[in-house]
């Protein structure tokens, strides 16, 4: 697993990529591009159980646990939210529950996207981060029961 990157390493990569942009338009065009490229979630996963509620946009999130690591898939009806999701998945998917639980996700603030985590946007991203951590907590608990 020598090519495995830690959460901090991936966060640094993203921050570096964003340092190339100097206008909001450029940043968002990049995020929108990521959003368009995010593979769609299979329809069978787009059910209420997987819905992360936000006021304006909807996010569906599913998680799998394999060999001690958590894998996420998600989608949203907003392209910009999809772009943000794509970055969160890049950072958190394939990590261990412990690392996910303790991730501070400072890259969001460093790339100037904190507004999307603010309550006012209520766009589901904040709930999505919480939900990702909840999955990690749940998998960790389940794991400690079975081992």
């Amino acid at each position, binding site marked *: 697993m020598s090519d495995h990157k830690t959460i901090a390493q991936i966060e640094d990569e993203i921050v570096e990529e964003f340092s190339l942009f100097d*206008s*909001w*338009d450029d940043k*968002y*065009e990049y995020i*929108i591009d990521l959003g368009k490229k995010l593979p769609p979630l299979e329809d069978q996963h787009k059910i209420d159980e997987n819905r992360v509620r936000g*006021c*304006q*946009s*909807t996010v569906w999130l599913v998680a799998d646990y394999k060999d001690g690591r958590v894998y996420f898939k998600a989608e949203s*009806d*907003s*392209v*910009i*939210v999809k772009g943000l999701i794509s970055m969160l998945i890049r950072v958190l998917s394939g990590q261990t529950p412990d690392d996910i639980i303790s991730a501070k996700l400072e890259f969001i603030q460093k790339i100037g996207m904190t507004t999307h985590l603010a309550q006012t946007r209520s*766009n589901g991203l904040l709930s999505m981060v919480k939900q990702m951590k909840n999955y990690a907590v749940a998998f960790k608990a389940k794991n400690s029961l079975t081992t």
Partner: protein
Amino acid sequence: MMKTAAISGGLDVYAIREQFPVLNREVKGHRLVYFDNAATTQKPQEVIDALVNYYTTYNANIHRGIHTLAEEATAAYEATRDAMKEFINASGREEILFTSGTTDSINTVAFTYGRQNVQEGDEIIISAMEHHSNIVPWQVLCEEKKAKLKVIPINNKGELLFEEFEKLVSSKTKIVSVMYVSNAMGVINPVREIIKKAHEVGAVVLVDAAQAMAHLDIDVQELDCDFLALSAHKMYGPTGIGVLYGKKELLNRMPVFRGGGEMIKEVTFEKTTYNDLPYKYEAGTPNIADTIAFKPAIDFVNRVGKKAMHAHEQVLLDYATEKLRAIKGVHIVGDSTNKISVLSFVVDNIHPQDLGILLDNRGIAVRTGHHCCQPLMDRFRIPGTTRASFAVYNTLEEIDLLVAGVEKAIKTLS
């Protein structure tokens, strides 16, 4: 590119803009274009000054002290009541109750007049386009009283179907509560006719005038509404202060809602006798500062004149409607010709939130989402809209910026 004439609809927009300091600020490197006026309008300097002046020179609790500051504060507070009485032509100053806003005003009616007069099997009528503030209090009341909530349907243009209202209204109807103007679409409702019809069966009518106050002339005696609710912050005044107008004979008969200071005449542990109108409904220390600063907002609207405001805003609305309609994929929600200056629209395959974010990157403030009208959005089978709402200080140049922003956003997002 269109330029707003120095005089538009009979008013000098550029001179008016100078009275609103926030319009000079930049957002993300662009001059602010503020098109979220239906959510709350910006405040002219005189309103801001009144707030500062109150706290700087005569802050005191009202109605209680005999000292100079208390007298000055009481006089300024009561002056707003007089100005509001004139503004809506109430028959007396005691018909003007201060509340925290439209929501508070509607709740007050629901839980005083409503609780007193609605019984099991009675009906309350609202419309399909109501704001949640004019839905939820009635639902709570209906549940409590086992009464029924009836909803007047609308057509595809977002216009209320008066014939359907005529079918709904009956001797069971106790309260009709409708918005004068839709916040989500700008559509103007036939409240005059609704009031007349409701009175024929003995029902009382509450008009939610939150969106009408800054645009339409309102004379409560001529309208003959029983109650009227409004918020100062949607008519160039401060937040946290609103009005409940009620006909005197109704207010006098209504039970009190909140107990506390100011609303009493005499209190013993056995019994309290209540103060007279309007004070019996204003319990506790009120929002003195914002009430005082509401008066200059009323003065501002009076000075500019609602007719002139409406005429100018209509120029903006017509221009924006024509320009946005011409963009491929754009559909106007509430495409009625009887509207105030609210333009709500959806764009094929584009989420309103994405559009709103990209407009914000250009300094353009619009509202996206359901506008607190989820039943209305369900009626149109959409999750939400993008809404641009115009005020007296907006210009045609700003609309060109909006149109360019929408065109660019569509390109980026599709």
